[in-house]
């Protein structure tokens, strides 16, 4: 006898609806969702890819190929980022669609009002983070790493930092950002707790 959908051998699985997964990804992972929109250069394309990823992941969950609900988000983003990578490679092979990465990311966001408001809120947190950092050099580390996507070696060389100093700056900034975001109620951990009570 085959197992019911969403069941796994030896234990009963939580019934999880696909729409719930999608809704929770949207509400709990705005950063990754916004990043996909930027990378795709088209919010609708990003939404389609994310939707495909949710479907694929949900099917895996139904088939019992995902062990725990807290792994669902990881699967969704793994699949979504792979789909995006494939999409960009295909675009890269077409001369009429070819554009450098930076140009794609410089496209106007075209975000809907809700996403635009979410991004504004995140920007305010990041602004607070930067303003609270001790030096121009430390702020430059963040912008070069996260915005310009330079490698660690190059940043250390340009700013006269040791790798240890670099790690310390990034670690401190990351901790501060996390506190700022959590103080605003933006916590990805909510995803798991919400899934568990669905």
């Amino acid at each position, binding site marked *: 006898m085959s197992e019911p959908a969403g069941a796994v051998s030896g234990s009963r699985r939580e019934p999880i609806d696909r729409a719930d997964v999608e809704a929770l990804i949207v509400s709990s992972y705005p950063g990754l969702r916004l*990043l996909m929109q*930027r990378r795709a250069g088209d919010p609708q394309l990003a939404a389609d890819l994310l939707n495909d990823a949710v479907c694929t992941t949900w099917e895996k969950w139904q088939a019992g190929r995902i062990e725990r609900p807290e*792994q669902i988000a990881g699967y969704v983003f793994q699949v979504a980022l792979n789909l995006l990578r494939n999409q960009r490679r295909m675009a890269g092979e077409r001369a009429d669609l070819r554009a*450098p990465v930076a140009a794609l990311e410089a496209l106007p966001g075209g975000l809907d009002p809700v996403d635009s408001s979410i991004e504004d809120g995140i920007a305010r947190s*990041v*602004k607070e983070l930067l*303003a609270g950092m001790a030096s121009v050099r430390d702020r430059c580390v*963040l912008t070069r790493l996260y915005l310009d996507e330079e490698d660690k070696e190059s940043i250390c*060389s340009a700013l006269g930092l040791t790798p240890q100093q670099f790690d310390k700056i990034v670690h401190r900034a*990351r901790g501060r950002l996390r506190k700022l975001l959590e103080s605003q109620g933006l916590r990805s951990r909510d995803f798991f707790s919400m899934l568990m009570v669905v």
Partner: protein
Amino acid sequence: MDQVVINRYLSDQLSDAERAEFEDRMLASPAVIEELEAAARLKAGLVRLRESGQLERIVFSPARWPQPHVLALAASLAAIAIGIAVWRSDDAGLSTPMLAASVVALTDESGRQLDIVGRHAVLRTRAEGYDAVIERPHAAGALEIRVLPDMSAAPAGEEGRYRVDLARLGEDVATPVATVAGLRPQADGFVTLFASSSELPPGRYRLSITRESEAGSPADTDSFSIRVR
């Protein structure tokens, strides 16, 4: 979790093997997806600030210090740090850098960032003589130098990094005096670097700009003749 790896994953800079390893960790540990989300939010916020024109002002504004005693403590610590840095520099036979990719790397003896006191463009000219003449200002400070590579393999705006080597020209010999790597071109094709005016003595120089290439690929280099006076 290493933030650099997380950032490289989000930037699609990992090799296939690195990505597979990272994704295994991501699926095994929900904490990693939270780290990813935090990094993604940081990126989104920075992009938004840049788009709104606020980023540069925030990054280059003076730090906010909450209390005078914190400032005093920080000043003490900075003095110690600068002392250690100077000691280490002297130990290595180096002084304040002559060239840097960022102006924030150029500081005076008290550790204060140098003000930009001059801006110069270095590009191929048809005139005989020098491609650029740099006048050293009376006040010590940072000189912004914008170099336009004219190598055909590196059109303006293309992704890539450059290295600049500066050599002082004597009667018969060119003496290397400074190198700065990891420079990124701007949208207009210029590559910007900064020089400390007090570390750049008058004389004739050769500025070479090389496109940093993949291992094994031939490197493209352009050289410019510069006069500093």
